[in-house]
């Protein structure tokens, strides 16, 4: 018997495992407003470690860290604090290949900026409203949605997250946050990950992810997620929008993905994508009603944008308009199975564009559904997949730029209750060298 049609390799992207943290997080009763402490704690001048500084700092205070290697697992339970390095490349939280996570944020309103987290087996920076786990992929039983509140307000800015085994920068069950001007490489899952939220109100902007299995991944993060002006190039898969039964709040839907550079995701200098994904610009697996517009999507040797069902969840209503395609194996392909066929997806037609099936090409997405099965995956180009590189051995990036706040002794202040949409309409197709000066893969 011939082997049956396989689902696309990235479709079952392995999901985060927040709960590892239960080892680390002893549900520390978060400091109440009455907490007393110092508004500024310098490391190492006032405290020998970042963890110790967090015991001393006041709510709304600043932990300011001087250059050095910090071999510690930091857990942030103080609301509204800022952890800031004075030198992004010189302040290094190092997991040494031994520890699970660099910085785990479980308090609202926290800013992490201008430092490096590396060599952790799980995560570089994790922001989560579900410390200790309890989420949907706690197999083998299906579970109802958690009634734990989402973590509110966070900011990750000018963080370099390298050689972290699962995710570099990771928000889960959190909302009203910003991840920007950061760098991630060497992750066996994804460099940056946003998962499990509705009305997320999360902006992912100006980041660079390369030499990861997947550059940016979104599973079950919906509505107001704005992915703008990032460079997702030189990974195995540039970015994914996926619906996953292994987490709650599915399906994934209604993100804005605008003005990103998504090129040459054929990196051999990275861990493998678990399901063999390679040469893919954007993968949308069971994602719905996303606007993927005015991105530059080139040189992805399998496919520029790949649509697929996630089990019985179809990829529907995705608007793929105004993107600039060049040099992809196929520009846009839908390989959805008949049992969960896509509908209302559209790509604006352009000369020379390779869209399969061709019926997806239209200047506007149809408003009524007429599901049609996609092409056979075997009809995509056959690409050899290079062997994976140990996540600890992935090359380091060039020196990354400091935040303009690097030397400031002022805390960030209270993060806003809501972030809001960037001016998406003003964002054009990016140039071919977006963020290239900070990239190791050019």
């Amino acid at each position: 018997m011939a082997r049956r049609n396989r689902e696309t390799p990235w479709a079952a992207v392995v999901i985060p495992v927040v709960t590892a943290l239960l080892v680390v997080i002893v549900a520390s009763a978060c400091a109440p407003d009455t907490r007393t402490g110092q508004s500024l704690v310098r490391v190492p001048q006032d405290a020998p470690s970042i963890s110790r500084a967090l015991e001393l700092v006041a709510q709304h205070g600043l932990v300011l860290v001087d250059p050095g290697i910090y071999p510690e697992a930091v857990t942030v339970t103080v609301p509204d604090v800022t952890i800031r390095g004075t030198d992004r490349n010189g302040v290094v939280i190092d997991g040494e290949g031994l520890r699970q996570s660099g910085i785990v944020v479980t308090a609202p309103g926290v800013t992490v900026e201008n430092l490096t987290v590396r060599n952790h087996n799980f995560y570089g920076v994790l922001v989560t409203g579900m410390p200790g786990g309890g989420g949907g992929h706690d197999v083998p039983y299906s579970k109802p949605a958690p009634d734990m509140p989402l973590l509110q307000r966070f900011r990750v800015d000018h963080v370099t997250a390298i050689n972290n085994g699962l995710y570099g920068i990771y928000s889960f069950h959190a909302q009203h946050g910003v991840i920007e001007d950061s760098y991630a490489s060497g992750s066996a899952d994804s460099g940056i990950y946003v998962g499990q939220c509705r009305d997320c109100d999360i902006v992912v902007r100006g980041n660079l992810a390369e030499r990861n299995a997947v550059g940016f991944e979104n599973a079950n993060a919906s509505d107001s997620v704005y992915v703008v002006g990032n460079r997702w190039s030189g990974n195995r898969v540039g970015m994914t929008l996926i619906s996953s039964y292994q987490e709650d709040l599915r399906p994934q839907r209604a993100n804005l993905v605008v003005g990103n550079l998504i090129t040459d995701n054929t990196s051999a200098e990275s861990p493998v994508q678990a399901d063999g994904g390679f040469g893919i610009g954007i993968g949308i697996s069971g994602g719905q009603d996303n606007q993927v517009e005015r991105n530059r999507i080139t040189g992805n040797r399998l496919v520029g944008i790949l649509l697929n069902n996630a089990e019985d969840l179809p990829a529907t209503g995705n608007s793929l308009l105004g993107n600039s395609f060049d040099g992809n194996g196929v520009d846009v392909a839908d390989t959805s199975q008949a049992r969960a066929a896509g509908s209302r997806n559209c790509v604006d037609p352009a000369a020379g564009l390779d869209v399969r099936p061709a019926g997806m090409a239209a200047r506007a997405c149809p408003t009524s559904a007429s599901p049609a099965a996609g092409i056979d995956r075997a009809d995509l180009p056959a690409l050899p997949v290079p062997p994976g590189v140990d996540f600890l051995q992935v090359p380091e990036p060039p020196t990354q730029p400091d935040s303009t706040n690097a030397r400031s002794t002022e805390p960030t202040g209270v993060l806003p209750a809501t972030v809001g949409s960037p001016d998406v309409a003003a964002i054009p197709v990016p140039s071919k060298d977006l963020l290239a000066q900070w990239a190791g893969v050019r």
Partner: protein
Amino acid sequence: MGRCAVKPRQGRPSRRNLLAGVAGSAAAIGGAVAIAQTRQATPANTEPTSAGGIVPATGATQAGIDRPATPQLFGLVMIYDLAAPDDLAFLATLGRDIATLVEDPPADLLPDGAVGLTVTVGLGPRMVSHRRPDLPGAESLPPFAGDETIAPDARGGDLLVMACAEDPTVLAPVVDRLLAAVPGVRVRWGQRCFRGAPPSGSGTIIRNPLGFHDNVQIPHTDEELAANVWLEAPLAGGTLCVVRRLRVDLDGFRGLPTSRREEVIGRRLDGTPLSGGLPFDPVDITAKAANGELLIPAHAHVRAAHPSFTASHLMLRRGYAYDNGDGDSGLMFICFQRDLRTYVLTQQRLDSLDELMTYVSPTGSASFLILPGHHDDRPLGAELL
């Protein structure tokens, strides 16, 4: 998420799976703890299954689903068509006859006693939908990959009578006697089947014809059975059964090197997950090597079938082997669950991903509402009358 686990690094199954220790470890705390509890919990049914043993036929649930706790060595699955879908009066008689056979075995039919006999009765979708189209069991299975090759007579059916015992010789006479009292009944398809003795002496885990352990991850405790298997009112104590006769290319599979067979399954021959741990431990589907490769391969059977990918309930599998000669042998897959979706989404996923399916051809397929248990005050089928 709760599957976080930190296995000590020295516990890694191989040098290469650095990440597994950590990513993989995910399974440990949640997973390992859960399974430990499962193993320590008292099984829902502890009736003996030894030859001569009586497995109570009456109760809140029918026998042959979760009792006896160690499934009998032999089975006979018979599937019938019924002339009149609106006539269910025979069920009450059938239930009483089953109870009488087990409680007071007639010497002409069961000279050595009950020999662990159970008889489990289910109704096909046509019967259920005729009476109550809103109830679980009214819906038929959709076609799966390869189903187009199944002979029409080996698809579906109105009535399931599954008899199991420690002595194969009693099964056909018992079923024949029971069915003699059912009017307008015609055999549609059926299968004699068998299974090996559990390597541990008792319990559900056996080796299947592929040479690997089966029924490792299934619900055992009352809580697990309630959450995954039993229906609720008005069919409390009932469940949904899927029967699939799967011819397996055993020569082809056995022709693979051992390591390849283990990759196809996702466990080693001794039952140890490829993600590490001890034999029969839960598989850790998140475990990876440091270079990102999954320790349980992407197309391994245990990964494809893992309920987390479909948010499915945990099936209660209670399958058998069969061998009809001339190379027609394989698995009589039998499972019980509280919704058809669990089976449907899982099988669709297997059809897409599971390398083991390349060795499998379906030759029979049906689903049934297994009626709630019966006793003196509640005849079999009372819920549908």
